[in-house]
């Protein structure tokens, strides 16, 4: 790619969502809005290398996309009456944003678009694909690569989702107050899903895909900037920043997993930690009843602020997990609490909790439960039971890097004939 084309790409990546959001509201059709912004991209590829990047690329994109949308509407003669009215509305609305307008005249309407893309009437995988395409501005091949799916699969998923938005009348708007809490929660869940897909790839040879995590952080930043009074929006952004700040330390040079206790903390991104901690504190100050993201961010912040693994305040982390389990009970959080308790009070206390999770059954197929039990059993000197638990964990791990880590741990167990502790 030429440097000019790369420059066009960069500008469009950062402006795509805003332009689509604005046009989608005016045109009432996200598919048409997307096509129009894509037309503007092609126009920019032709014109910017010769004319230079305009002083206000945002307004340029919106103005060109508007004209292209009106052209498309005029060409499309099937819905004639519809078209006249829409064209008039679009012209009226958008005459305000001409190419010479200054930056702030193009309103940021991405929230509407995010809520539309994450509407619960769409299947989760459709929500993820739509959000990545329309809000984050990723191309179909990029989304396919990021989600490890075939391009035609993603293309078809997007076509179906856009058809449903249009045909079912999913509105392009921020939900009314009485629905906002629920809808925000499901929208944040989509963003966090995207982040986690990047943070720990569920399958494949690599442990993480930074680009996807980076996109999720960008989305989280848009939501928390546009909804500054929502503690969970700040909490989610904080959580993602804090987890992402450790990315360079999470694998070693050979691509092997390094757990938090053994990570080289000098590789943690301090600027991101500082922002994440500040956001966590803000989220916690905003409400007396912090939600799951604020609490998970607080847990991540305790880790991030410990100078060494030994300095980690496990008592505080265990207490935060207690609060988290009250707000948002999940077997995974219960498992994490058992780890924190094992490090605060000792492996026996942790194992008791882990065993009760195992007895409850919902994590029976998670390698994490077995790996956690294996670790605690190993620390208690019960090597034979630990080895059995590691073997189950290895069978169930989906990620090769994680599987190798478990194999190393299994190999490190002392021989059962030489127990660490005397009976």
């Amino acid at each position, binding site marked *: 790619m030429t440097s000019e084309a790369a420059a066009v790409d960069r500008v469009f990546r950062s402006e795509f969502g805003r332009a689509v959001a604005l046009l989608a509201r005016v045109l009432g059709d996200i598919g048409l809005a997307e096509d129009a912004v894509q037309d503007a991209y092609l126009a920019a590829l032709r014109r910017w290398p010769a004319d230079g990047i305009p002083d206000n690329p945002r307004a340029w994109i919106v103005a060109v996309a508007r004209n292209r949308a009106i052209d498309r509407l005029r060409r499309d003669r*099937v819905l004639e009456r519809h078209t006249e009215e829409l064209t008039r509305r679009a012209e009226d609305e958008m005459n305000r944003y001409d190419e010479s307008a200054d930056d702030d005249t193009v309103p940021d309407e991405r929230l509407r678009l995010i809520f539309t893309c994450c509407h619960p*009437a769409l299947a989760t995988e459709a929500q993820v694909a739509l959000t990545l395409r329309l809000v984050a501005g990723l191309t179909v091949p990029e989304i396919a690569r990021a989600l490890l799916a075939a391009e035609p699969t993603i293309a078809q998923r997007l076509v179906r989702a856009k058809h449903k938005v249009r045909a079912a*009348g999913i509105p392009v708007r921020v939900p009314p107050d009485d629905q906002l809490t629920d809808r925000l929660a499901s929208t944040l869940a989509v963003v966090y899903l995207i982040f986690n897909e990047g943070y720990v790839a569920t399958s494949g040879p690599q442990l993480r895909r930074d680009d996807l995590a980076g996109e999720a952080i960008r989305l989280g930043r848009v939501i928390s900037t546009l909804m500054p009074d929502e503690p969970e929006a700040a909490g989610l952004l904080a959580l993602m920043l804090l987890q992402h700040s450790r990315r360079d330390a999470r694998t070693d040079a050979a691509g092997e997993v390094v757990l938090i206790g053994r990570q080289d903390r000098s590789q943690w991104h301090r600027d991101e930690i500082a922002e994440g901690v500040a956001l966590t504190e803000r989220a916690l100050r905003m409400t007396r009843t912090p939600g799951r993201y604020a609490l998970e961010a607080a847990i991540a912040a305790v880790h991030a602020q410990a100078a060494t693994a030994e300095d980690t305040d496990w008592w505080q982390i265990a207490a935060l997990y207690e609060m988290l389990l009250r707000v948002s009970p999940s077997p995974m959080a219960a498992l994490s609490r058992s780890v924190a308790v094992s490090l605060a009070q000792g492996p026996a206390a942790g194992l008791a909790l882990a065993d009760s999770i195992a007895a409850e059954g919902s994590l029976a197929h998670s390698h994490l439960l077995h790996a956690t039990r294996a670790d605690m059993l190993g620390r208690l000197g019960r090597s034979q039971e630990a080895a059995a638990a590691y073997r189950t964990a290895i069978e169930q791990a989906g990620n090769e890097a994680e599987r190798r880590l478990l194999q190393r741990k299994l190999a490190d167990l002392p021989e059962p004939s030489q127990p660490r502790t005397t009976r």
Partner: protein
Amino acid sequence: MQYVLLIYGDPAAAEGMSEEDGRAMMAEYFEYTEGLRRSGAYVSGEPLESAQTATTVRQRDGQQLISDGPFAETREVLGGFYVLECDSLDQALEHAGRCPGARYGSIEVRPVMVMPATA
């Protein structure tokens, strides 16, 4: 936009209902329908006779095939419908959520297809 609310439920549950509960259910539906009329969303709506009274018709190779029973044998069967005029799917979902049938069975919300104007 127009939406159809298709009300699905388990007929066994309805049959097992006491007379008193049945009357209460009817009263709820009257009230619900009244609310839809007042809001201006109501276009039409009818309860249906049981699925046991259904007859399915197919036309194949110029022959009409008639069979007893509903199109698909499922536990939850279509028990009635409403046609509503709403400004968006959100409004239709809100109305659907208040439908008494939503508490026992499920409501499928389907937009009515807009046919292109033939100018």
